[in-house]
Every structure is written in C-alpha cells, then in structure tokens.
C-alpha cells in the first residue's frame, strides 16, 4: 500500500515521539506476545516477543507503528504463531470501559464518513468523564469486593474515549488461571446481572408489635449492598458536594433510613436513587472473557487519535478530561491542514470547530494530528 502524504507525516510524528519516549512495560513482558499495526497495512504483525526493553524501543523508533499491543496472557512461547502451541500460562484480568457503550452516552455520538468511505463516530467529549466515573467504581469493586491488592491495579486512558483497567497478576495467581467461563461470571457480577430487590432490601420476619427500622447500606457490607454504600459516598461528595453526608456514610456505622433522612433531608433519597442507577459497572464483556486479548501498551500512541495511552491515578479519575495535554505534540507548531469532509460543529480535545470540505485551516498540533489520524483532514 502506497502511503499518502498525511500518513507519511503521521508516521514521521510518531517516530519522533518514540525516539524520545519509552513505553511502559510490565516486568514479565518477555512472556507476552507483542503485536503492531503498521501505517501501510490493515493487518497486524503478530507473535512478536522481546527479551529487552531496548529491542522494543528499537522496533518503535524504526517502524513507528500506528497501533502497538501486548497480550494480557503470558506464554511459554510468546512468539509461536500457532495459538495451541503457545503454552498459555495465565492472563491478567482486563477491563475495557468505552464511553460510547455507556447507557448515558447513547445518542451522544456524531456519525461522520471519512474521505475513504469509512464510517466513524465522534463522541461527546463529556462522556469520557462518565467513563472515568465507571473506572473509579470498578477500581473500588475490585479492591473491596474482589479483594485485589491496590498496587496490582493499573488504570489507563485508552488513547481514544475510554479506560483500560488491568489487574496485573503472577501466572500462578488463582485469578490469572481463571477460564473464560469464570471471567464471564466476574463480568456478570460487576454488571449486577439479575440483581434482586431483596438483596438491597433484605426482608425481615419479626412478630408484630416489634419496632422494625430499616437500615442504610454501609461501605463495609458485602456484595452489592456495600457497593451501593460506596457509590453513595462518591455521589454525596463529588456530585452533590455534601461533605457532611459523605462523612457520615463512610463511617461504617449502622444507621436507619429514618435517622439519616431526619438529619439530611430529601438529598438522602436522591443520592441513593442515583447510586442504584450506578450499581452496574459497564465493562465490555468480550474483552474480559478473552484470555488471549491484545491490549494497548501504556505510553504507546493511539493511531486513530495521536493521543498517548496514559496511566491515570485512581484518585485523579474524577478530574480527568480530554485535553491537548494528552497529546505528545502539544508543544509543536500549528499545522496547516485541508478538510476532507463537511462536519457539523464538533469538539476536538476541547476545541470547537466546524470543517468545510476543501477549506484550509491552521490548527494546534494535537487537534490537527487527531483529525488527520481520523481521516477527516489531510496535511497541506
């Protein structure tokens, strides 16, 4: 495939990035399969394996791939092309949260057709914040419900419109050995599939005359009750800005609904209603159940956006937003481009623009690269 000028330009930019920056590799990277997609082909180059970090960097700075991945699985022979002979040893637990799969973000996409007829959709950039909240809920559930040590969990912005949450595991960890069937049950649990009302409101049989007071969920309770309690704390603090209520709810004290409502009023009901809506954690089932999945390498570049796959501290998830800072080309000079299509007003990394086919624009490098990678503009 003959590369057009725009792709050659992008490859040049990616190469300059990889010449100066290192990707982040887990300690056991030599047991993983690596794969990349070059700029001049639609197929992946798979079954690569590396012994040293320098070998990886050499590939990146010479090929400057459009996409770069490693496997969630660890193998005896990571470079063996026959999947049956690879010698699967175990796989990390991986979760993909994609903003356009979130119920709140349905119908918040703009569909566009690129110059070569490919259909793409741009999502409302606000939706990435919902995805960040989803990742935060997931992080809490992994820690408190599934007992995963905090230091094993890594969260990354995917480079496009969501987050990857990886639980790094030694191959002999019980979670690493979980089969697809078992991983599907983890997903079902996180998604709160088939949740019964009695789980959140346990029925109680007592003789009449006794005074029964129902209690609010606390953060220390098991299963979905505990999750409800923790989400209520998050909402009280971050969405409703009620620090007092958040403090009371996170105290892990058994407290009746009546007491809570007497003290804080209607907000209690609002928060818990919202929390109930947030109980399901929307992860992509297909990704988690696949025990041989390829995932983007942290600090590699996403070929459809030109953004870095960026590790995010769980504490900072709630302030995460799409911005030019996620682009390694932020300090580059403005780039002159020509629009290949007409678009309605769109927001790209916080910049509002409207493209007219055939017209020229001088755009900040992050946005110019983003639009070029998406096939909406060409370099001039």
């Amino acid at each position: 495939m003959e590369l057009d000028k725009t792709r050659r330009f992008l490859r040049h930019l990616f190469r300059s990035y990889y010449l100066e920056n290192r990707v982040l590799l887990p300690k056991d990277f030599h047991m993983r399969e690596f794969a990349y997609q070059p700029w001049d082909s639609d197929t992946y180059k798979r079954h690569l394996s590396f012994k040293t970090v320098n070998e990886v960097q050499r590939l990146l700075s010479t090929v400057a791939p459009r996409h770069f991945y490693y496997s969630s699985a660890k193998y005896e022979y990571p470079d063996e092309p026959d999947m049956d002979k690879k010698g699967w040893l175990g796989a990390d637990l991986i979760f993909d949260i994609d903003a356009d799969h979130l119920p709140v973000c349905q119908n918040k996409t703009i569909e566009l057709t690129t110059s070569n007829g490919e259909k793409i959709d741009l999502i409302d950039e606000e939706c990435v914040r919902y995805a960040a909240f989803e990742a935060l809920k997931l992080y809490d559930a992994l820690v408190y419900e599934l007992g995963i040590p905090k230091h094993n969990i890594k969260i990354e912005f995917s480079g496009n419109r969501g987050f990857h949450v990886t639980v790094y595991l030694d191959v002999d960890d019980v979670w690493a050995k979980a089969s697809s069937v078992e991983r599907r049950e983890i997903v079902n649990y996180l998604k709160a599939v088939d949740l019964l009302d009695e789980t959140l409101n346990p029925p109680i049989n007592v003789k009449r005359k006794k005074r029964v007071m129902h209690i609010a969920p606390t953060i220390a309770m098991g299963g979905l009750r505990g999750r409800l309690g923790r989400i209520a704390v998050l909402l009280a603090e971050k969405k409703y800005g009620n620090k007092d209520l958040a403090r009371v709810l996170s105290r892990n004290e058994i407290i009746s609904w009546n007491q809570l409502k007497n003290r804080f009023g209607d907000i209690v009901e609002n928060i818990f209603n919202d929390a109930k809506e947030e109980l399901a954690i929307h992860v992509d089932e297909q990704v988690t159940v696949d025990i041989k999945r390829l995932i983007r390498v942290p600090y590699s570049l996403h070929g459809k956006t030109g953004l870095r796959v960026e590790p995010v501290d769980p504490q900072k998830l709630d302030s995460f937003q799409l911005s030019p800072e996620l682009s390694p080309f932020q300090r580059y000079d403005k780039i002159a481009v020509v629009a290949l299509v007409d678009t309605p007003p769109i927001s790209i990394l916080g910049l509002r623009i409207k493209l007219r086919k055939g017209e020229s624009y001088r755009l900040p490098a992050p946005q110019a690269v983003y639009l070029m990678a998406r096939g909406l503009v060409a370099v001039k």
Partner: protein
Amino acid sequence: MILLTTTANVIDYYWYPFVVDLETFIRLRYGVENFALLLESRKDILEHAVERIKDALEHGEVRTEPQVVELAVCGYHAARLLIASLGDRWLASRYALAEAERSYKRLQNEEPRTIEALAKILGVNLTYLAEPYREPIAIVNNVVIYRQYEYRIHFLDYVKVAQRLLGDPTWRPTNLPVKQGYIYLTKKQITRILKEAIATHIERSIIGFRIELAALPQTVKEYVETVKGLLSKYRKPKVVKTGGKKYSIKLPEGVVLVEAFPPCMKDIYDALLRGENLSHHQRFAIATFMLNIGATIDQVVDLFRNVPDFNEKITRYQVEHLAGLRGSQKKYLTYGCEKMRTLGLCRGDCGVKNPIVAYYKNASKLIRRSKEKEASS
C-alpha cells in the same frame, strides 16, 4: 471398616462412597487388584449396583439402603463400572445426580469438620468460620439484627462449583455477600453447593473410568446388558416443544437426518457438497445448524472439505469456536428464520421460528412414518 484415609473417622463411607479409592480398598479388604474379576464371584455387589442405577433412572435419587458399608462402597463403584462400560453420557450424568441426591440428605446434618473434609476431597476450597460473618439486616426494638454466614468460599471456586445453579438469580454472586474475594454462605447454601460438586465429581469419575469391554468377565458383561435394558426402558426421548405442540424424537449424537433439513439448510448443504464457494453467512448458518442438531465437529469439518478455500486447520478452529470449545466458550445458536429471511437465505414458510425446530418437526414425522411402515409390513 478399614481406615483408608485420615478422613475415615470424619466421613461416613456409607453415605459418601465416592471418597473411597477403589484400588486401595479392594487391595486391603480382599487382597485383589482387579475389581472386575472380584465382581465375577460377587453377584450380590452387581445386584446392588443395578439397584442403585435403577433408582437413579426411576426416582432420580439412589434410595436403596444396603445392610453394610462394604456393599454401599463396592456397589457404588460397580455401578460406575457398568455405566462406564456402556459409555452413555446421559446415564452417567443422571446417575451422578442421583448419587449426589442421596449424599445430600445426610450432608445437611453434618458437622463442619465433615463438610470441610468432604469439600477438600472434592477439590472445593471452603472454610468454616468459627466466628460467623455477620451482615446487618435491620434494627428491631433498637437492637441490630444480623444474618449469619458460617462458611466462605473463594469467588472463583464458587462460580466453578455452582455453575449449574447460576441460572437462578438467587445463586448469582450478584445477590450474595461478596467481600475481599470471598463469597459468604450459610450452611444450607454450602451443602447445596457441595451437592453440585459431588455430582460433578462422580460424573467425571465415570467418564474417566477406562474399561475394555472385551476384557470384562462374562458375568459382568451380562450385567452391562441388564443396565442397557433398563436404560432403553426409562430414558425419555428428547422433546422439542413448539407452539404448544410436542415433537418427541430421539437421535443419538452424530446422527443427522439430511432428509429432515428445512429447505434453507438443504440448499446450503447441497451447495457445499457441490463445492460451491459460500458466503460467510451461509457458512455460519449451516455450521451452527449442524452443531445444534447433534452433528460432531468432524462431521461439520468434513462437510466443508469440498469448498475451494478449504484449510482443515482453520476450518476446525472455526467450527470448534462455534461449538463453544474455544474463544468466548459460548456455543453459537443458528440464525432464526427471521434473520435467515433478511439475509435472503430463507426458502419457504415452515411455520416455525427457527430452522432447528423445523428440523425436529420433520424428523419426528419421518420417524413416525417409518414406524407405521414397519408396523404395516
């Protein structure tokens, strides 16, 4: 009774004969190595084994109560041997469930140490909590009321063992107290889970029982025949329900009646035999259809041999994927009639919603007709 394991004083073999290692038992008890040879001179054991199997077929529960522990243990293992010789998966599974049902009756009244010991043998990693885990439920007369859980099991162990129960929402982890990687359960719940583990354990031990039918003593072979007779008497034919009507037919695995194919599938099938190059949808439709009516992987792969781009390795991989043996481990359903219609693959109105139902409907007609012919001639 001979003590075979350190658990012998904790686990009563009479109720849990599957924990006894057969080879060790007969060597210590009778001084022999070959169980089949022993059975030749012990018709009482074979008779008891048949009783157990008959109970399984008739009641779905082993009810017979032998006089001595020895008979229970040997009878159970003899039943395993007879079923394994027949090689019938359905019977293996039915028997396993019936034995589990019997053990379960006793299990519900066992002490924690017995439950823990049994679980260990079954490979289920659970812990009895001397101090139960408590979940607050409500406040009654100013006192907090708790629900107590005496056992805990790792999340992954739970979903492995409870797999068959998960269709029922009350058994989903979603509705259980999950904390720090463990699921907390009451005694009642844990015994129900162990019943599952027992059934799985027994089923596997039957399937894994390697037997050379030819090498069995004549007496034992006769009992295999007896079990075969019982099986054909009790086994319910496969029933497919559609629109209130029942089409009851019985087809063993690997038997495919091409004459009963609905027109859409017959078309694709013929095209395949002619070696035509088919679309992805056509290939998907016929492969999933065949797999869902009981064709083996080999049969489906063979069918694709004539297509121009045939590659055995790739085809096998893909068929295994569709059969749920690979990848997401989900067995794929075939397209419904509605989807076939939108793909332009439907060839007529069969009055059903799915090609598989049409197949069984046709097949049951075919079988009935051939039976009538048989009767009249």
